């Protein structure tokens, strides 16, 4: 799941790959609420997973973990 998030952030949102790290928060990557929602919609489209408690201060690792948990419970 982390790999999917990282790929979307670089390919879809044009964020430099070297700042996309597990410890980075979405805010660190200068996403705003609109772009974070957009990212979540793309993840839902690709995976069928819906997560509602990822926010701008979530790290990529914690967001990936959250999706993985959603996957496990699905």
């Amino acid at each position, binding site marked *: 799941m982390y790999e999917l998030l990282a790929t979307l952030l670089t390919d*879809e*949102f*044009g*964020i430099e790959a070297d700042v996309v790290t597990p410890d980075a928060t979405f805010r660190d990557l*200068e996403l705003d609420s*609109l*772009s974070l*929602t*957009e990212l979540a*919609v793309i993840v*839902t*489209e690709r995976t069928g997973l*819906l997560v509602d408690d990822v926010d701008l201060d979530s790290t990529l690792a914690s967001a990936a973990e959250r999706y993985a948990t959603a996957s496990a419970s699905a």
Partner: protein
Amino acid sequence: MGGEIAVTGIGLVTPGGVGVGPTWRAVCDAGSTAARDPALAGLPVDISCAVPGFDGDALLGRRLARRLDPVTQLGLVAAREALAMAGLPAGDWDPARVGVLVGAGGSSLAGVTEAHRRLLACRPETISPTALPRSLPSACATEIAHDLGVTGPAFATVAGCASGLLAARVALGLLRSGDLDVAVVGGAESLRHPLTVAGFAQLGTLSRHAGEPTAACRPFDADRAGLVVAEGAGVLVLERPGYARARRAPVLAWLTGCGAAGENHHPTTPHPDGEGAERATRAALADAGWRPADIGHVNAHGAATVVNDATEARWLARTLPHRPPVTATKGALGHAGAGSGAIEAAVTVLALRERLIPPTANLDRLDPDFDLDVVAKAPRPAPESPGALTVSSAFGGQNAALLLRCA
């Protein structure tokens, strides 16, 4: 008379190319940019004038470009060019006294049709949250304001193909009243969408000229057969004269008067006498304190439909009996709706600066019913008179006219 306003920058993204230089060369070249369009494959008419080689990701950055519909990207790139030419933003400007008024014929369809596809597939949870904001008619105006960091009024003027010139009309008032120091005005639109083209085809306004696509758009020609859809954006930077003078801005041309008028005639057909366009032009003349003879050349609406051009020829001959030379930019660049009015205003500024009237592409044989002097085949040196008129006529009978003079 309302007082002149300075034009200090222009920006163009058109089927002639990305930028003022490529567009000016394309319109002076007397060729058409129309070609078969893969995006329109399978439709009754599948030709358009597209902006060549436009790469929004490269020009604006992927992060910004991905949330903008293509038409907003065109407008934003044109605005950046116009502002750079004007030398803005200036260090000491007041962002609240800068307005952005960009004409749009309607909502941008690119993102919203994708959202609709997902809705029809019963997958509303996969619709992008950008689907609504990116489709707003005001998206281009507000994105330019955001890009520029200004906080004055930013909105769209919406009246079909007259929208671009109406933006200038409204801005003129806001600058003369002293509400604004600077107004970024223009128009951006793409008619190159299958839904738009299908709709125009049903109205019977699209050219089905039997020849090559490059021969399809023929303003004022005896064999004209309809319009060719296009995409594009034009932006002009307008300033209060005192503001432009104080910052020693280069003045490209003076905007001397604007007029707008409706017709109360028909939803899609102009009044046969061009009554609204004539009144808009006379209102602009009164606003500028000009006589008709002060108009040295005309950049006409010239949509190349049978009815539009006949109407336009009648009212131009009646209103401007001194027969100033007429050009129609849509012969080269096609019809970009609200974008065209602003593109043609910028081309008129260039014509005044270069003292050269671009030719009307595809004008091989002037319609024998027209008492007009239409520039064809090659650019023509502009006459002594320093003034020019550009005019737009829209579905719904709305017309707008703008007068410019040499700086």
